[in-house]
């Protein structure tokens, strides 16, 4: 049960219920789609990038609580950040959710994203948390193909 509470922390449940920056972004100049064939999760990430800065970000789509909260919290954590810092946050986030559960949590520089540390106890759910991040990176790098978790 404690593992479950670790996974479904109140912040995650809150962002699932009322996702932030949800919907198409006006003035977006980049976007990408992501798809998880395992559970049918679909997400589109919209970015407004100017002078190497993520000025605006939003997402749309449907998915489980973990993927919706991951998308919502991602938008908050990268908004206003330079591209290279966004990449660094992404790497930190990926380390957080795929780390060995026996090791200490390393959430340095991740701020609120640390609520996802419980995901590492649930290997089947890692893709739920990372799909939107991969999709965001594809948008950032202007890759045309839809991203999948496979």
């Amino acid at each position, binding site marked *: 049960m404690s593992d479950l509470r670790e996974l*479904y922390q109140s912040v995650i449940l809150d962002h699932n219920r009322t996702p932030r920056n949800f919907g198409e972004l006006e003035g977006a100049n980049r976007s990408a789609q992501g798809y998880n064939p395992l559970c*049918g999760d679909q997400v589109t990430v919209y970015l407004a990038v100017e002078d190497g800065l993520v000025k605006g970000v939003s997402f749309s789509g449907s*998915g489980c*609580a*973990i993927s919706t909260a991951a998308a919502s919290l991602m938008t908050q954590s990268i908004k206003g950040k330079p591209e290279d810092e966004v990449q660094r946050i992404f790497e930190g986030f990926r380390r957080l959710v795929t780390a060995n559960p026996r090791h200490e949590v390393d959430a340095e520089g991740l701020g609120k994203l640390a609520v996802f540390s419980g995901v590492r106890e649930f290997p089947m*759910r890692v893709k739920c948390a990372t799909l939107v991040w991969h999709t965001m990176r594809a948008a950032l790098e202007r890759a045309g193909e839809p991203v999948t978790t496979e």
Partner: protein
Amino acid sequence: MRAARDRALPPRFDPERVRMDFPILQQKVHGKPLVFLDSAASAQKPQAVLDAMSHFYASDYANIHRGVYELSLRATQAFEGAREKVRDFLNAAEAREIVFVRGTTEAINLVAQSFGREHVGPGDEVLITAMEHHSNIVPWQTLCQEKRALLRVAPIDDRGQLILDEFEKLLSPRTRIAALTHVSNALGSVNPVGEMVRMAHARGIPVLVDGAQAVPHRHVDVRSLDCDFYAFSGHKLFGPTGIGCLYGKAALLEAMAPWQGGGEMILSVSFEKTVFKEIPHKFEAGTPDITGAIGLSAAIDYLTALDLDAAGACEAELLAYGADELAAIPGLRLIGTAEDKASVLSFVLEGIHPHDVGTILDQEGIAVRTGHHCAQPVMAHFGVPATVRASLAVYNTRGDLDALVRGLRRVREVFD
């Protein structure tokens, strides 16, 4: 003989006792007794199947149909004995009408690639239903694209039942084959296959039946159904993975070209010409899953000894009980409420994604399937991306369903 004996002494069917035959079910998961409700994906194996396979490897194993030595003889007899077992199980006329394949998927691909490529041409039609598993969609879609033929789909209603009139209307002079599921894996709906076969045959159209979800739950008699092809997988029938069967009427199989070439399926090979073996061997290129067939044979023995009719009655009662209990959970919507239904309780919980439901249930030791169940068109029909699916088998009890209901209340607690 078997039927006569059953009438004389009806054995009481007790799922609690059946459960004891399955070693994997005697464990705890996350500290809770395992409640396995995902048999529609793959069923667990009784000790008798494990023993049969282990004994075969330990005592009788060799390649089949070649060696003149004792072990090869024993292995060949066991393998062909398994074929005869399947024939009897399906009540096929002859053992040569049973082709061993990897599973239902391979069986359907075999028919699409051999029979389909021969008979389907530009402008022709292949008819399926809206409740097919991807494995009874994709092989036909690929064939139709290649042949510039049309894939027609018979619709289902809001309860997940086939609309029989529409199916009949779609049987056209251009229909070259109808491929339909016996029991829907995502909804549990049972199709009136016998009637559908009669409708198709009245127009000279052959029928393939996907029986993957049917054989674990009811007697299947291919001669009374009169279907032309019937496919099923061993692993859903309490047998091992890697083995399945295609039944085909002898005359059809004989007229069909081999699908794969190689050893085991030939009479003679020269660089100029190869002469193929008779059916079923011309469809069994390469060394087959010999031990898989032995395991499947043991699974059929196990299942038929249980008394399938009594087990079916017990399951129907369990299914009705589960449907009632689930319906009482606030915000729960059952997907698929067909009049004639087998094994499957598919549902969504308002505001909670099936994936989250599955993770929380797992923490309670309950194994269910969450996702689109390889039936995305079915999900689209009901306007959901995915469902939670609990599916029943001979070893499931009321206790399992009570645990599921408790688990779902737990899900609500976590989310509210």
